[in-house]
């Protein structure tokens, strides 16, 4: 099951050139672009591992593509995303986020039902991937 979160996730995977253009858009807006990776694809998993520092003072997006490729060498079998943080007053949050790398095999999610008091059922989703310990989730 293809993971769809962030921008462009219903589109075919972005090429490096497209990643560069998107990142350049963010840089031109004055946002700090950074690269993050994770092997826990749950939608509520907000804080991914940082790959290096946010790139505050790189005027050109070639540096972002460079870092994405460096990260792919190390974590090529995990999810990698590029995010852009807007520090301006009133926003102070992520303005862009898109996945640039995904595992070759994405097992998807299952629904977990928990019986509560009375006849209440609580639903939650769990990725099949996280049943393996960290670091062994994707081949």
């Amino acid at each position, binding site marked *: 099951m293809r993971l769809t979160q962030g921008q462009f996730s219903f589109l075919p995977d972005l*090429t490096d*050139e*497209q990643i560069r253009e998107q990142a350049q858009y963010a840089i031109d807006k004055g946002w700090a672009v950074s690269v993050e990776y994770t092997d826990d694809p749950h939608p509520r998993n907000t804080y991914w591992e940082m790959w290096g520092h946010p*790139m505050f*003072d*790189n*005027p*050109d*997006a*070639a*540096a972002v593509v*460079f*870092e994405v490729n460096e990260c792919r060498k190390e974590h090529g079998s995990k999810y990698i995303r590029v995010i852009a943080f807007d520090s301006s007053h009133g926003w102070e949050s992520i303005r862009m986020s898109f996945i640039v790398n995904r595992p070759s095999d994405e097992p998807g999610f299952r629904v977990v039902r928990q019986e509560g008091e009375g006849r209440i059922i609580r639903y939650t989703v769990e990725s099949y991937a996280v049943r393996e310990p960290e670091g062994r989730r994707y081949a």
Partner: protein
Amino acid sequence: MSDDIPPRPAEVDLAAAYEESGVRGILQELEDTMIGLGPVKQRIRETAALLLVDQARRQLGLATETPTLHMSFTGNPGTGKTTVALKMASLLHRLGYVRKGHLVTVTRDDLVGQYIGHTAPKTKEILKKAMGGVLFIDEAYYLYRPENERDYGQEAIEILLQVMENNRDDLVVILAGYGDRMDRFFESNPGFRSRIAHHIEFPDYSDEELLRIAEAMLHGQNYRFDPEARKAMADYIRARRTQPHFANARSIRNALDRARLRQANRLFSEAQGPLGADALSTICEQDLRASRVFRGGLDTGRVVQSTAAE
């Protein structure tokens, strides 16, 4: 990605491309603002022509690879290497060979770390910052210290070479330094020599050119020489050249800074009543003649190391 590639033009108008790219403006600016440096200007014009032709060839589908644009600037201190590098960056930007056209100036300290494992991230950080622009490495030979085989400079050199080769589209590296030491640096690092296509030699300025530079500098700050002071400046340049730590235009700039200081002092102690704009902006002979250079140079009195860095 797009399937509809526009048909290739059958011919290219070089003159129109020249006008369109705005290269003329940069070359003209170079001609106007830089005094002397004949051979350097000539080389830059040639490089610009080469790049324009290459661009045209690419439009016709004749050339595919990005030409190697890495350069080395050699010359004595104060001969305008950094200034020309700045112009080069905007020239390459106008021609579309770098995307942003900014200049990142670094020395050994910015690239080489202090302990094991510190160098690679530091060098990569700088390289990332320079992507889309020009990386100017001043006194590049300090990167290589043959007397210490465990020097981290070697690591920085390896990363540099790798990026210079693999990310040729992303950044242009300019190495700068004194001629003889750069030659030795290239001898011991043949990888650099082969990756650098353009070697540009910066000649020293003549006395006449330095005087014109002095006047241009003063003009930029709304000062001027009176006729005697101009003569004194010519004498100063002749005397200064023979003394140690002579750094061409930079020595002139420092001399003018000190002359302005003395002028301010003179006005302050001598002025009776109000001063006009004329008095405030004229450098007189005595402001220059008071210089230590006329009394045998730095050896008399306190020895001050004039900085020959950059």
